[in-house]
């Protein structure tokens, strides 16, 4: 009998506390089939053994799965190039796998457009789900599925922004280290997209200051040492000192500008968070507003009703009084009539 063989095969998997009895189930299926054949019940066994009936997948799940595969592709792409992207650290840069900045920018742009298209797709699916008139359970299920995809996308975006933050930080550190290379003091690396306006102003100021100071010093010297064509050693020293001073001033300015940049990036992040919270609160406030409006309406109606009631009460009283007076008059009249 097949039973005994199957029974031993249904032994507990050592790592689970739960017992997998799927094989036992399949054995029971076979038993039932043979039993049915013996009894003579009509059995179409051929159908599901030979080819698995693939039920038509609805459009929604196909598209949802598509979005997921896209996001996974993005994630793999980011992870693949992560090491190269981030390896800006060493100044002794002989790594062959090192990327140039333009490649990094390319990756940034591609990732951003990709993320945008994915979130668009999710929004589209969401609006479709709203419009479609399906049962409540299916709708709830689809909304939850879209939430899951959204969370997944957020996770991948976080990967990307972490990478980017590391890159920016590395750039800033590198700049700080290489302060004494003043050939391009005003050159800005195209790392940060949000360039503060102050930096541009400072940049414009610094070359001006540079030129004006150089001009002043050169004019001073020119006035002083007009006679000599060649520069004496003291003058050379003075020039050198002035150069050093200028260099340190420039690098200070660049440092401050870098710092401001970093702070502004942080502030923008915080602002995003605040904006999110405020938007969340907006819907709550709308609800409260509606409730308050409804409450004032109700109170107004209540006031009206109370006024009516008072009037009715007053009117009622008048009628009672009139009736009593009429009764007493009629009594008097009858009495007079009788007597």
């Amino acid at each position, binding site marked *: 009998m097949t039973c005994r063989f199957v029974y031993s095969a249904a032994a507990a998997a050592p*790592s689970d506390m739960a*017992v997998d009895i799927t094989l036992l*189930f399949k054995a*029971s*299926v076979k038993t039932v089939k043979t039993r049915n054949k013996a009894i003579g019940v009509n059995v179409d066994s051929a159908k599901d053994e030979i080819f698995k009936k693939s039920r038509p997948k609805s459009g929604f799940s196909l598209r949802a799965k598509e979005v997921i595969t896209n996001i996974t592709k993005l994630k793999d792409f980011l992870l693949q190039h992560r090491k190269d992207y981030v390896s800006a650290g060493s100044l002794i840069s002989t790594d062959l796998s090192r990327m140039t900045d333009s490649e990094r920018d390319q990756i940034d742009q591609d990732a951003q457009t990709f993320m945008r298209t994915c979130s668009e797709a999710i929004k589209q699916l969401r609006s479709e789900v709203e419009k479609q008139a399906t049962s409540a*359970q299916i709708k709830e299920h689809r909304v939850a599925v879209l939430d899951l995809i959204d969370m997944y996308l957020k996770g991948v975006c976080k990967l990307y922004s972490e990478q980017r933050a590391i890159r920016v930080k590395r750039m800033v550190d590198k700049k700080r280290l290489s302060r004494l290379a003043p050939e391009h003091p005003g050159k800005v690396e195209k790392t940060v997209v949000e360039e503060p306006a102050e930096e541009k102003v400072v940049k414009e100021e610094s070359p001006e200051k540079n030129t004006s100071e150089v001009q002043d010093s050169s004019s001073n010297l020119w006035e002083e040492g007009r006679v000599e064509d060649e520069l004496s050693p003291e003058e050379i020293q003075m020039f050198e000192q002035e150069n050093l001073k200028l260099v340190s001033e420039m690098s200070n300015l660049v440092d401050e500008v870098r710092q401001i940049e970093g702070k502004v990036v942080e502030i923008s992040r915080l602002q995003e968070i605040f904006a999110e919270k405020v938007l969340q609160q907006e819907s709550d406030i709308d609800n409260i507003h509606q409730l308050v409006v409804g409450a004032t309406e109700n109170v107004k109606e209540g006031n009206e009703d109370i006024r009516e009631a008072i009037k009715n009460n007053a009117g009622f009283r008048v009628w009672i009084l009139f009736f009593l007076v009429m009764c007493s008059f009629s009594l008097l009249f009858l009495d007079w009539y009788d007597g």
Partner: protein
Amino acid sequence: MATSVREKQTVALKRMLNFNTPPLKNAAAEPVWKVLIYDRFGQDIISPLLSVKELRDMGITLHLLLHSDRDPIPDVPAIYFLMPTEENIDRICQDLRSQLYESYFLNFISAISRSKLEDIASAALAANAVCQVTKVFDQYLNFITLEDDMFILCHQNKELISYHAINRADIQDTDMEAIMDTIVDSLFCFFVTLGAVPIIRCPRGNAAEMVAVKLDKKLRENLRDARNSLFTGDSMTAGQFSFQRPLLVLADRNMDMATPLHHTWTYQALIHDVLDFHLNRVMMEEGAGTDPSQAGARPKKKTKKTYDLTAADTFWQKHKGSPFPEVAESVQEELDAYRAQEDEVKRLKSIMGLDGEDEGAISMLSDNTAKLTSAVSSLPELLEKKRLIDLHTNVATAVLDHIKSRKLDVYFEYEEKLMSKSTIDKSLLDVIGDPDAGTPEDKMRLFLIYYITAQQVPSETDLEQYRKALLNADCDLSPLNYIKQWKAFTKMASGPANYGNSGVKPMGLFSRVMNTGSQFVMEGVKNLVLKQHNLPVTRIVDNLMEMKSHPETDDYRYFDPKMLRGSESSIPRNKNPFQEAIVFVVGGGNYIEYQNLVDYAKSKPGRKVVYGCSELFNAAQFMKQLSQLGQK
């Protein structure tokens, strides 16, 4: 037991929800969505362990009851988690026939029999859905874990295995067999999940003994069946297996009837006694108007609120077992700490406002942005803290209202004195006759405890006096009949239980002065200090774990399922003291005993004690069962 039972059960559930493969640790893994279908048993098991948010995180989009109307959702795998009863199997077959989902993962809470499996198989064949039934599992999770070290058997049909059902006068043998089978099945699942084979000790001559015999047999059979054993060595670490076998102490409710009726003073036990508390969820009515003088006005609508007291709530975990006044003070402290943090955050706002004009203070700006970032990231924590403080404030206020209106502190003090046989200053009649203090139920409880703990039965005249006083106070006297029977029976069997020495010191005036500062004005409520004392169950566990010889526990039976020959001797082979114990009370238990065991385990370092019972009742429910028994 390096990980507690609750963690083991949670891990098992999570694995099941992940199609029975171990869940990946990768945070950014692709989401796979599924639908969870459970019956009421499954719901009770899952709800204390996993919140709805955690289910969502694991990809469960919908969770539905088995016997509700469900719409077909194609292309979605469905995970079923239910007991293998007839109606559940019928419903599964119906689902298969109507082809509601794409693939089916069937998980049965306890083992399913072969015939029922064949029913499902035939339904699947008839619906041509055999390939859709992807996996079938026996999960062996037929128990509900409420705390790290506390479990109960079931919540749904607990009348079937309640104290009343076991101790009925008109019980049949078949009924008893059925009850015992249910209990043994759950205990067996518990030990499978724990992954250890215990040594069993039980007293003689009552329901606990029957359970022990059956459990021993079942464990033995399973161990003998070498191919199919659920306790193979791969699943457990070596240390856990050989030297550290846990001790299972089976106790019976009849040993100690006073503890379930006792009025209590610790936070968790009070909530269970006074409010509606099931499966770690408190249900309260909010907004109850306290002045009944507005005769003409419509009564204020009471809204029902439910609160979940979970493991993530640190305040709850710390103060579950503390006496109530301590809890009140701690809530006040937490509130103050929270307000301080809130002020800190608000202060930053003003600083940021000033800084906009000061251009040169870049360093100050950086400091404040760092502070602001940390404040913003700590905001969700702060909000969570506020929510918890609100929750505990509401719950504690409700409990305090009950205490004040029923004068529960007076009862508690009196009962402690009764149970420790120290001198009592007020006579029992005074307390019963006092119209202010407590509901008729409270008075009945007090009297029953007096009756149970009295050394000799009070004389007939005394009894008549008490009866009259109780009837005056509108008490129901039927539990008394049953307790009389019980007392007579246990007197024959052994001496009355000794409740150990305890002392209760009221703190009186001094406490009142101290408490005026706190929000909870506990005027008139005595601040009672609990001294450590051991309930009978705790003492038994202590004796057995340390292998002390004591007249109470000496003639307990001894079972070891791993021994080849089932010996009937009561001489334990193992002479070492046990480090882990599992206490199971047949017939019902409550939080007072649990708290006592937790305190005992804390006092002895390195000891772990897990408490379980067949059902969890508070004093009111127990009284109802007693009155039903007394009316027969």
